[in-house]
């Protein structure tokens, strides 16, 4: 483990606001992949407020780092981060999942500023990442491709095809994060299809691998830094163990939380729990 840098207050505040945005969007719909948004908020806050290069007023700036959301159902989390990053206006939050909205429930490239791919059909993102990383190298660009995908996507063979090719082409400009929250549609991911020992598998596929507590901001910051600085010409991946519903204790405790329904009065309780965690 890298030595702790101490609590990064500014980053924690961004992570709080990403969670808060996600809960507010969840309230619009009354349901959603809110537990995933809460578990990945620390990773997204670190990506958008520590690691990545972008211009909020020019989401398609050529010099930007690309962020690919392979697990399109995490759109609520990415919108929350894009709002916090100033790429999507705060007032659009209340349109989430509504007719005519630029913020559909599943992320699509054609709808949303800052959304680089159409997810939803799980397992396609890593292939796109390979192509983008090849393209950036062709252009002699130093921009990176960040890609977030979920542990359930590890069941998809195409993810492994793409990971094999990323190592083959020495795509050291890819920084992947796999969210291991151990929950997919039919139950705990490790029970649906055993994917451990994951670190060994990824190393054997030729990747530079780090496994961290994805809800420990200091660890997330260190992992992104190490992924950027690593000298070997290998693609980089961070295996982020996360807790579904992180930051809202009654959601953390909910057993079946892949797609949760939250009673109307609970949204305020969730916001209050986040606020409480922020002060702590």
């Amino acid at each position, binding site marked *: 483990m890298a030595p702790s840098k101490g609590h990064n207050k500014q980053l924690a505040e961004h992570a709080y606001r990403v969670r808060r945005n996600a809960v507010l969007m969840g309230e619009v719909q009354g349901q959603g992949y809110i537990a995933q948004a809460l578990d990945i908020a620390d990773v997204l806050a670190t990506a958008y407020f520590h690691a990545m290069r972008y211009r909020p007023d020019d989401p398609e700036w050529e010099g930007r780092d690309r962020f690919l959301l392979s697990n399109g159902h995490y759109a609520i989390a990415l919108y929350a981060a894009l709002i916090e990053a100033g790429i999507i206006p705060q007032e659009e939050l209340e349109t989430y999942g509504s007719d005519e909205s630029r913020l559909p429930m599943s992320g699509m490239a054609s709808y949303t500023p800052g959304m680089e791919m159409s997810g939803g059909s799980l397992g396609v993102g*890593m292939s796109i990442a390979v192509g983008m990383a090849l393209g950036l190298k062709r252009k002699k660009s130093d921009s990176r491709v960040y890609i977030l995908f979920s542990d359930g996507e590890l069941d998809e063979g195409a993810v492994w095809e793409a990971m094999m090719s990323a190592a083959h082409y020495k795509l050291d400009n890819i920084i992947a994060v796999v969210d291991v929250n151990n929950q997919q549609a039919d139950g705990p991911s490790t029970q649906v299809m055993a994917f451990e020992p994951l670190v060994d598998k990824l190393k054997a596929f030729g990747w530079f691998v780090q496994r961290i507590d994805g809800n420990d901001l200091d660890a997330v910051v260190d992992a992104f830094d190490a992924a950027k600085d690593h000298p070997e010409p290998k693609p980089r991946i961070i295996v982020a163990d996360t807790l579904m519903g992180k930051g809202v204790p009654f959601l953390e405790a909910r057993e079946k939380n892949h797609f949760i329904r939250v009673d109307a009065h609970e949204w305020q309780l969730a916001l209050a729990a986040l606020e409480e965690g922020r002060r702590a």
Partner: protein
Amino acid sequence: MKPAAPQPSGKPRLTTSAMIASIAGDGQKTRPAPFGHALVEAAKSRPEILGMTADLGKYTDLHIFGQAFPDRYYQMGMAEQLLFGAASGLAAEGFTPFATTYAVFATRRAYDFIHQTIAEEDRNVKIVCALPGLTSGYGPSHQAAEDIALMRAMPNMTVIDPCDAHEIEQVVPAIAAHRGPVYMRLLRGQVPVVLDEYGYTFELGKAKTLRDGNDVLIISSGLLTMRALEAAKELAADRIGVSVLHVPTIKPLDAETILREAGKSGRMVVVAENHTVVGGLGEAVAGLLMRSGVHPTFRQIGLPDEFLAAGALPTLHDRYGISTSAISAKLKEWLSR
């Protein structure tokens, strides 16, 4: 149920010979690898063109491009989903990938990747696929009898079925200049040259009359246009006038020209395609005619809705009715009723 072993017939039987049997007739004029050479030409003035394949460079003529531009050629391994997802990523970065494999693997194995990462995202990827329809005697694993049905059902996708080397050489620069996803059926290896005799030029989205006749209008694409022209010559000897309307762009369909030609009175309309009768050019034309209130006598020549047999290609083309002699016989039968 598996068939019984064949009985000795005393006659030599044709063999499957190769996965990619030649579609050229005996003594027919051909040119080698027209796609590969045309892509090299197009790439000289278009630095954004890249070549990508899934372990089928040699079998899609893309190796010609790979030899000319080794640093613009990507071998993605035997992984078609990766091939098309990565092509989408390269297109997102401003390049124009020509991604090649066999038609079965693109349209059946990687359909969702093409649908989501290329068509839905409107990426400028050219999907170029060998062994379209029935051009392999290998059996259903390599026979893309339904590739057009699958690809024309996909929004945003342009679908092209060229007839010969002369046309392929014109399609390549045209689709390189066209902004948007394209599916192109590929004839590879020694490819017949036919359309130069007809003064033909390819235009994206245009159907063109290759010959005129008063008894039958054949509307065809790809390999079957070549066969239709041969059948038309045979029938001319019997004083049967056959018009051939070549429709290389199956989507978007040239509705204006098809309606004009099919609307001329007194001609039986026959759609001929190297594809299952389900969901291809035949049904596309039938739907267009019905919707437009044009009601000629209508017939279809195409592959049956069944898993096709393995065997020698000439045998299979005869059996399934897409050889020149089978087409001629069918037209005579229909006209005599």
